[in-house]
Every structure is written in C-alpha cells, then in structure tokens.
C-alpha cells in the first residue's frame, strides 16, 4: 500500500468562554474530496494531536452540510466561510482554523451568534400575518421585484459579513449588514410592506443603520453573493424618507 497522505490542521482552541485560546496541530489521514468538516470528524474519531498526545476532541457547530444553514462558519486560512463548503483540495496546507472573532466563543470553533438573532428582532425581520380571523391572501408581488428579493432571502445568518465588517466589534453596537438586508427583504414583500415603518424604526435605533461606515467588505465576502451594500444604501434612503415623514408628518408614514 502507498504511504498514507495526511492533511495538517492548525486549530485555535479555547476550552471555555473565559479561558485563553491556544493553537493545537493535528495530522489527519487524507481522503479524496474531503472538506474541513470531514477533517474535524476524523479528529473527533481519533483525538490525538501532532505530538502524539491524546487530547479532547475539537468542538465545532454544523447542521445542514450544504451551505444553507450558516452554522458551521469559521475563519479558514484567514477567510471567514462555511467549513462544509471548504474543500481541502482547494486549500493551502497547513489548514488554519479559527473561530470568528466577532462573536463570543463557546468552545473551540463554536461561537454564539445570538447578537444576530437579537438584531433580527430589533428590525422585526418577519411578516406578521396572525389575526383573530383569516386575513386572506396578500397582494401579489411583481415578478421583477421577486427576482431581487429572492437574492436577499438567501441570507442564512452565518455571520461572515459581521466578521469582515470593521465597524462590528466589541467597542461598537452596530448590528451589522445582514439584519439591514433582511429588513429590506421584508419591506419589499407586499404584505410585509404594511409594517415597513416598524422595521425602519428598528434600523434607526441604537446600533442601527448609521453604524455602517461603507467599508463594503460585507458584499465582497458574503458566501451567498447578497448585494448587502445595495441593501444598506436602499435602507439609508428609506430611513431618510421615513425620518422626514416622522418629523413633518405624513399620512403614508405607516
């Protein structure tokens, strides 16, 4: 049998939310077409580091394994992305894995993305359709609008745009690009539009729209190619109009 090829992973680990991070190296047997997650699974199966010491298995988060859930995001060779979609054959060796630094680390590569879900609540990123009676079908949506709104709906709250944003950090309360784009998605929906001002009010609250400094890293790194900066500019315009309506008064300020 030919000599077993290996893949080297250098992983930034952390035992608990408050403990100090450290690097640990692992050599994992190579398999054709393996992704970063299958490498992590090998480590879990056989948690022995490159020095031959037995260690704790590396913890990470995952769910769908097809780049639609956003759970397995981590920084791979300096680039924040989904580990399920990161094929080892396409990566430079050794492969460096770090947790996304914008979020609190739970353990090893597992991060807590709760701030993103809080932000979605702040901008009311949903469509309220519950009533005491059947509200019936909503208005129809123009096909052209549906096409670009569909692109926005691909957001999986993965956190990559927040990781790349220079204004999302522990010194600022900026909610980041993703929830701003989600507010645009639900404001573009014909039923969601009926509550448009509530989402704009959420965007005008602390940490909202004005936290954006237009560095535009988000649109470059989004794994789904969502036009985040267009969304931010669109919400900037909508918020401007809304604030004038609020101040001067308007029958269309809903």
């Amino acid at each position: 049998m030919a000599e077993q090829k290996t893949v080297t992973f250098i992983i930034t680990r952390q035992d608990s939310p408050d403990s100090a991070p450290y690097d640990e190296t692992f050599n994992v047997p190579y398999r054709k077409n393996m992704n970063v997650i299958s490498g992590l699974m090998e480590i879990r199966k056989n948690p022995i580091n490159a020095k031959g010491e037995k260690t704790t298995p590396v913890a990470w988060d995952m769910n769908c394994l097809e780049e639609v859930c956003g759970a397995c995001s981590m920084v791979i060779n300096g680039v924040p992305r989904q580990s399920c979609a990161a094929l080892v054959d396409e990566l430079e060796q050794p492969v460096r894995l770090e947790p996304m630094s914008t979020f609190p680390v739970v353990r090893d590569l597992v991060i807590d993305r709760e701030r993103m879900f809080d932000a979605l609540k702040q901008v009311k990123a949903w469509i309220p359709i519950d009533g005491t009676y059947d509200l019936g079908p909503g208005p129809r949506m123009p096909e052209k609008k549906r096409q670009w709104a569909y692109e926005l709906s691909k957001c999986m709250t993965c956190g990559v745009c927040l990781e790349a944003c220079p204004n999302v950090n522990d010194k600022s309360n900026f909610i980041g690009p993703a929830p701003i784009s989600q507010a645009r998605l639900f404001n573009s929906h014909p039923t969601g539009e009926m509550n448009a001002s509530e989402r704009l009010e959420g965007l005008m609250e602390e940490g909202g729209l004005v936290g954006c400094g237009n560095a535009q890293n988000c649109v470059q790194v989004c794994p789904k190619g969502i036009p985040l900066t267009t969304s931010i500019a669109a919400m900037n315009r909508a918020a401007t109009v809304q604030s004038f309506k609020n101040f001067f008064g308007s029958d269309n300020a809903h």
Partner: protein
Amino acid sequence: MAEHREYFYRRLHSLLGVVPIGLFMVQHLVINHFAVYGEESFNKAANFMHNLPFVLALEIFIIYLPILFHAILGVYIVFVAKNNVRRYGFVRNWLFFLQRITGIITLVFIAWHVFETRVQVALGASLDYSLMEGILTNPIMFWFYVIGVLSAVFHFSNGLWGFLVSWGIAQSPRSQKIVTYATILVFLVVSYIGIRTLITFAYGV
C-alpha cells in the same frame, strides 16, 4: 427624534461634513488661490472676507460649531472602528481606513492652522500675504501644510461619496462606482487649487 439620538447625530455628522464644512473648505481654498495672481490680489480678497458683515457670527455658525461637532463625533467614530485592511485589502476598505487616518491628520492640521492664523490675527497680527509667506517659506511647515491640505481634501472628497451613500442617494453599485470616479475628480481639482497656492506662498512662483 429623541428616541433616535444616535441616528440623528450620525446623519447630522454626515451632512455637516458637506454643508457647511466641505463648502467652506472649497471656498477657502479658492479665495486663497488669489495669491497666485499676486500679493495685492490676495490681500484684497482676504480683506474682503475678513470684513464681511457679521463675520464673527458667520465664523461661529458656519465654521467653528460645525467643525467642532464633526470633529468630536468623528474621533469617537475613529475609536469604535477595528480596521482590518491587512486581512481584507479591498479598495473600499482602504478608503474607509484612510478616511479615519485623514480625519485625524486634518483635525491636528486645522487646530494648528487656526492657532497660527485666525488666533494670531485676533491677537493683533495683520492678515495679509506676508503672514502666510512667513509660515510657508519654512520647508517643514510647507510640507506639513501640503499633507494637511491633501488630507483635508481627501477626507472631503471621500466623505462626499459617503454622504451620497449614507443618505441613500447613490444606491445601485453602478451609481456608487460613478460617484467614486466623480469624487476622485473632485479630489484632484481641489487638491490642485490648494497645493498651487501653497507653492506660491512658499516659493513665490
């Protein structure tokens, strides 16, 4: 408005950078350009500006207060950013970084410049060509002024782009790109006007 304090202050910050601060800066550099047409020409223009009716009120409300507000909030904005151009070397990210660097340089430059000119005039120095000539014939001060003027003009030009995006005027990627080219042109033209004047003061040509 009270419940959207941060929103209001940040939008005001963006607006003040263009109107009146940006407009004032362009006007200031254009008036100074009279120096290129000769000492007398500059003195006449400077005297006209200095003797405008309500000049102190104009200075306070069009220059001092807006710049003070823009500077204080601006330093805070610089402080809350965590620049990452090494990891994400995109053009816009560099411009974001430079916007913060030039903001700080411009603040230092303006503080020095106001002390050296407006404060000295208030204390009795005469406002004329020789005041600036005296400052700028020193090569160290000349280069300090070159860096200061370029920083201020860059900060204004790039800030103009930011203003158009932050107020939602330029929304599509195409419009944002064309505005980028337009603001590069603004940077080149206004920089030329400013630097040309500095050269006249320093070298008399």
